[in-house]
């Protein structure tokens, strides 16, 4: 309503703050959906089989991509760090530096982006279709809460599977960097492994897993939000899918900074 009023009398302030207002509303919608997901997730019945189905979906949709991206990320990092560190004769450190970067940043962030692109877009499209073909209304009519039935299992799957996938990303990434470093750039395999052991502390892995967990929640929440509230038929579903991916990626980078600054003491 007030949006329409504002567009009839476009003041400078209204124009400048319109996106900010939109963002606030968006956060409000997400918080509301998250609240209901927690509320309904806590209430029986617990639909374990739906959660398992969604975990399979997230895993199957994303594991190949995550592995592939993990492999190349590890390889690229090995090449770049060897190049840089050789300048001051520190190529011994490569294994450790790669492991740190992968565990704290690359694995959770890139995994979340892969999951958003594959599983998140799929969730938004599926829920959007269910909305436009009245399946969500049908659930409600049959006294089944659609948030409990559709949203909760997807968010739980994200919370569980993104950390698992991030771990896969990390391990394959280390493998890729080891392969390039040792076979391609003749680093000493013993030193490479030793530096990983000495430099990588549990807190690095914990930070990575915490991030992955929060991203898993965020990406699936945003995907569900756009699918669940989709409107306007096939076009609307297409838009919902795009928005789900775009906003997930933006949210991942934003939250990454927040968590990093909270968990890292320099």
């Amino acid at each position: 309503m007030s949006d329409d009023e504002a567009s009839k009398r476009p003041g400078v302030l209204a124009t400048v703050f319109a996106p900010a207002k939109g963002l606030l509303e968006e956060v409000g919608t997400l918080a509301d959906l998250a609240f209901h997901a927690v509320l309904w997730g806590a209430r029986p019945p617990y639909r374990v089989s739906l959660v398992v189905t969604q975990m399979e979906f997230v895993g199957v949709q994303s594991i190949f991509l995550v592995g592939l991206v993990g492999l190349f990320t590890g390889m690229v990092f090995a090449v770049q760090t060897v190049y840089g560190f050789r300048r001051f004769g520190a190529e011994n450190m490569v294994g450790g530096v790669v492991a740190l970067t992968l565990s704290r940043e690359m694995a959770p962030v890139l995994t979340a982006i892969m999951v958003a692109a594959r599983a998140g877009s799929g969730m938004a499209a599926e829920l959007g279709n269910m909305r436009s073909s009245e399946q969500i209304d049908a659930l409600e009519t049959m006294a089944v809460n659609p948030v409990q039935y559709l949203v909760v299992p997807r968010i739980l799957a994200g919370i569980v599977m993104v950390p698992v996938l991030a771990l896969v990303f990390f391990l394959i990434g280390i493998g890729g960097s080891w392969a390039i470093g040792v076979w391609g750039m003749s680093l000493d395999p013993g030193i490479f492994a030793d530096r990983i052991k000495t430099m990588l502390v549990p807190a690095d892995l914990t930070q990575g897993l915490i991030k992955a967990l929060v991203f898993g929640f965020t990406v699936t929440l945003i995907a569900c939000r756009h699918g669940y509230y989709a409107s306007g038929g096939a076009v609307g579903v297409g838009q919902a899918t795009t928005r789900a991916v775009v906003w997930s990626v933006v949210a991942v980078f934003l939250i990454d900074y927040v968590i990093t600054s909270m968990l890292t003491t320099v």
Partner: protein
Amino acid sequence: MLDSTDAHVVVEGLVKRYGDRTILHGLDMTIGRAETLVVIGGSGAGKSTLVRHLIALERPTAGRIVIDGTDIASLSDVQLAKARRRFGMVFQKYALFDSMSVFDNVAFPLREQTKLSEKDIREKAMTKLKELGVDHAASLMPSQISGGMAKRVGIARALVMEPELLIYDEPTSGLDPVTSRTVDALIEEMRERFGVTSVVITHDMVSAFDIADRIAMLIKGRVVALGSPAEVLAVDNADVQGFISSSGVDVKRFEHRGNRKTAAELAARARERKAGRAE
């Protein structure tokens, strides 16, 4: 005509706005127990929006929906879930769950809302599928069946719980004439056997005049005619007359419907059944 104690659904001053568009402009109507109310009107008149309010899929902007004497807006989540067990809806776009087989779709409300054994569920669901002539498709997925079949499966799913209030949103659109008459017969049968209150949206005027106790005509979110088929035919309103004459329905037909049971008789039987169940 309607005894007020027999009112099943009462709509009072129902207004619905989306943004600054008003879709329903203050509707009032009473639907009697075991009555079949047919809602007619052009596309976009607000028919689906009206019936979605009756089962609390939409919240009124203003006004109330009272079912069995209770304002449904006053119900808690849990109470509403309970009330919904007594409602059924056949959706315009079938609304079959496309992740489940036809059989599982029809079994779904039984699994969710009853404690029946899997064997009883199978029997009930298959019986309904058979009644609608789609039992052979039980193991297929919704994407593998035609629109007409999907519609019948949607009807089977709504009927399987034997609800007290059944809403049909264009149950015969997209069906061939023979199947359409089968659906009409089913709507009649639900009413006769179980005393179901039915609200049927249709563009099929043959069907409208065949099954209606009363007809409500909606134009642009307003009720322009409400009454028995004969009364609606006699309404002195150009829009109403235009709608009916352009539908090409044989006006004489409805006058010879034989001896249908009256809504009052059926309502009395429905109450007995309910009392019997409560014991």
